[in-house]
């Protein structure tokens, strides 16, 4: 499969979309750079699929614009957008063989037969399914079906690739290997790709940048590390990895409207004397490399993870402990 001449950027500006009374997307602004592997990450029902369908032309926004390569796509129906979408359910046609499925988009473009055959073979090769061309989708495993769906989409050499939770139907082990394949494929094709998921590990491991979504809004956009190290708000902080959140109610002082946020592994246990954060240990879990303590502070329960050293002194449930935190690890975030 040849590399697209030039990868295409996506710009989304001022999008509002409602289904009747449900306001599904609220003032969404977003830029996806050419060639980027981008993720929409968020809890179920936050509008990820809807945003993807908007780009593909299956949903209409009440306000705002979607620009592909600088051009407004509003007047284009789905079949003229050249946006390849892999559906959550794969949507392989059961009445066609694998090869027929992959050939479909090419046939719709009235390409010569020889070229269709060549590109079908290439696409199937790329996803490692050349041997399965004659099978029906029902005769394939979940992972193979997923790869056929990808092959079918990239065969038409779309401007951008949209993947709606492509791994959700696979078992845990498959998920890891298939997501690596997807990443490798995307790199080879240099294709601008949006990947929808509600699994943060998935997003973290393969995506260049992530948009974290919540209830129809985008809460933060950044690389996985940026989002983890400097979350912009409580939602992002707690959605990506575990975070301890303390506020006024817990007997500490924080700036108005903000809360203190820190990661469990950034804190250490200290003696009670002189500690601002202190309380009794309520749980202890041994995780191998680390020991995880739960400590009650004010009205909240926080987690502290300390490295495990054999022979090292362990606290027990009921001990009063102090929690020490380097100032640079303290984040004061708004909701």
């Amino acid at each position: 499969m040849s590399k697209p001449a030039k990868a295409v950027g996506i710009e989304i500006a001022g999008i509002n979309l409602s289904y009747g009374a449900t306001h599904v997307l609220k003032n969404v602004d977003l830029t996806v750079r050419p060639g980027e592997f981008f993720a929409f990450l968020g809890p179920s029902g936050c509008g990820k699929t809807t945003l993807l369908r908007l780009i593909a032309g299956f949903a209409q926004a009440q306000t705002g614009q979607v620009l592909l390569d600088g051009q407004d796509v509003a007047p284009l129906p789905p079949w003229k957008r050249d946006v390849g979408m892999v559906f959550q359910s794969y949507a392989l046609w059961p009445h066609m063989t694998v090869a027929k499925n992959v050939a479909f988009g090419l046939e719709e473009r009235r390409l010569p037969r020889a070229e269709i055959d060549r590109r079908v073979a290439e696409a199937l090769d790329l996803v490692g399914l050349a041997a399965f061309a004659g099978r029906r989708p029902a005769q394939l495993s979940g992972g193979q079906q997923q790869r056929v769906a990808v092959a079918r989409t990239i065969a038409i050499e779309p401007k951008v690739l949209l993947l709606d939770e492509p791994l959700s139907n696979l078992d845990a082990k498959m998920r890891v290997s298939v997501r690596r394949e997807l990443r490798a494929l995307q790199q080879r094709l240099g294709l601008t790709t949006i990947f929808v998921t509600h699994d943060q590990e998935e997003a973290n491991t393969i995506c260049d940048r992530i948009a974290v979504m919540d209830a129809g809004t985008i809460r933060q956009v950044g690389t996985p590390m940026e989002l983890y190290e400097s979350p912009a708000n409580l939602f992002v902080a707690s959605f990506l990895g575990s975070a301890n959140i303390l506020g006024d109610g817990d007997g500490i002082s924080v700036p108005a409207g903000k809360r203190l946020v820190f990661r469990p592994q950034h804190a250490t246990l200290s003696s009670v004397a002189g500690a601002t954060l202190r309380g009794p240990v309520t749980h202890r879990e041994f995780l191998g490399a680390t020991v995880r303590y739960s400590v009650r502070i004010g009205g909240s329960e926080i987690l502290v993870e300390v490295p495990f050293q054999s022979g090292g002194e362990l606290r027990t449930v009921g001990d009063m402990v102090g929690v020490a935190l380097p100032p640079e690890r303290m984040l004061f975030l708004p909701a």
Partner: protein
Amino acid sequence: MRTLAGTRSLGQAALALAIALFLGLFLVVPVTTVIYVAFTEKGGGALTLINFLDFARTELFVRSFWNSVYVSAMTVVWASALALPLAYLTTRFEFRGAMLVQTLGFLPLVMPPFVGAVAMQLLFGRNGSVNLLLDEWFGFKIGFMEGLNGVIFLQAIHYFPFILVNLSAALRNIDRSMEEAAQNLGSHGLRLFRRIALPLALPGYIAGASLVFVKVFDDVATPLLLNVKEMLAPQAYLRITSIGIDDPMGYVISVVLIGVAVATMWASALVLKGKDYATTQRGGGGLARRKLKPRESFLAYAVVILILALVLAPHVGLLLLSFATVWSFSPLPDGYTLAHYARVLGDSSVYIKNTLLYSSLAAGIDIVIGGAIAYLVLRTKLAGRQWLDWAASTALAVPGIVLGIGYLRAFYGVKLPDGTPLATLWIVIVLAIAIRRLPYALRAAYAALQQISVSLEEAAENLGATKARTVRRVVIPLMTGGLLAGFVTSFATAAVELSAVLMLVQSNSDAPLAYGLYVLMQTPAGRGAGAALGVIAVVIVAICMGLAQLAADRSQRVRGLDI
């Protein structure tokens, strides 16, 4: 405890046995008699294929066979041509006429094709209203009703809703991502419909089309009323009525009719093998329907109105005919009168009385037996219960005319003490109708029972009710709505059942409405009265359908409270 279970399964076994006996006597015996006679020598008792050889050597029969195949196939083609655009329109577009199209589905149930045959002759025949107007305005005529075309025309506009309903349901059940994926890859419009939607809806289409094929193949009265005799089912009727019940040809034709019905169902099952795609909707929303542009919208309405006009033509024609003084060689009747209604409500009212009696008895039998079979199959572990279901369902593959012939032959020799043959009693007509309608009543009973959670019954038993009392106090009350709907539907369709009845009516005083209509329609003098009977039949059936709908709605509400 063991004795309790013992009496329980004993009761169930007795029930099953009674049903088996009924089905054996009134379905299996007549049908096997027909098959047996077809394979035995006339007069003698030796098994032989000579009758089939005779059949194949008789040019009239061979021609009739191919005519029947041709008419049935062409009916499927034309019915598809009518059904496809309507199904496409109503399932893929925002179209206000959709409701109108949905109601089309009920029309063939309200009035079988033979009822409107004569009226259609008057509207579309060589000298019918439409051709007279065409001739006057444009100077040409169209042979809608010429020979076999007439049968095809009439059957197609009567039966296309069977295809429409099945196809639409299948189209609605396709997961929307199937078509969105195609759009995403650059396909749209009719091409997308042809390449993705239609193949995925094939099971629904085939189900409808094979049903239409069989129904047309088995129809006796419609061709005869259009004066087409060279078709297979009419030949069976003519042969038996003109030569007698000892002539083997009627039986051979019957076996061929059964064979074609079975072969059609088998072939459709074969085509569908591995194609049960079951792509039901995952995730909400359903398929996004496209808005029609003004021009398209206009075209859509034009198509729907044209088809609606065609479908309603037999009804309108029938109504006109029932009020007409004289109607020939003119677009509309010369004058109008109520005399025909006076006549049928006067001396011909016996037909109506008979129909009400026969249909309620037949529907009653059906709902009792259907309900019992459904209960045995779904709620008990009685060995062989599935056989009852299969036996009852085979009635679907037995053409009415064959059942009629079977009854005549099997029960003519059985004499009552006073010497009258069993086959001439009116109750035999009721039994034949009941057997014909049983598969449909059975489906209704299944549906009604399936919607009742087993836990409701278990709760009753848990509270100390015995099995029999549970059935009486919990199951039957909850099933009432569904069973009532089944009863009324059976009643309605029984009221216009003719092909089996045609063979069994011995005297006018025992004849139901459909038979009276058939006889009256044969002569120009009787047409008006026949049409009046037809209108009355349509009204009875339409009222029943409405009641069935009400009953179904009511049971929906009752269940709504349970959940």
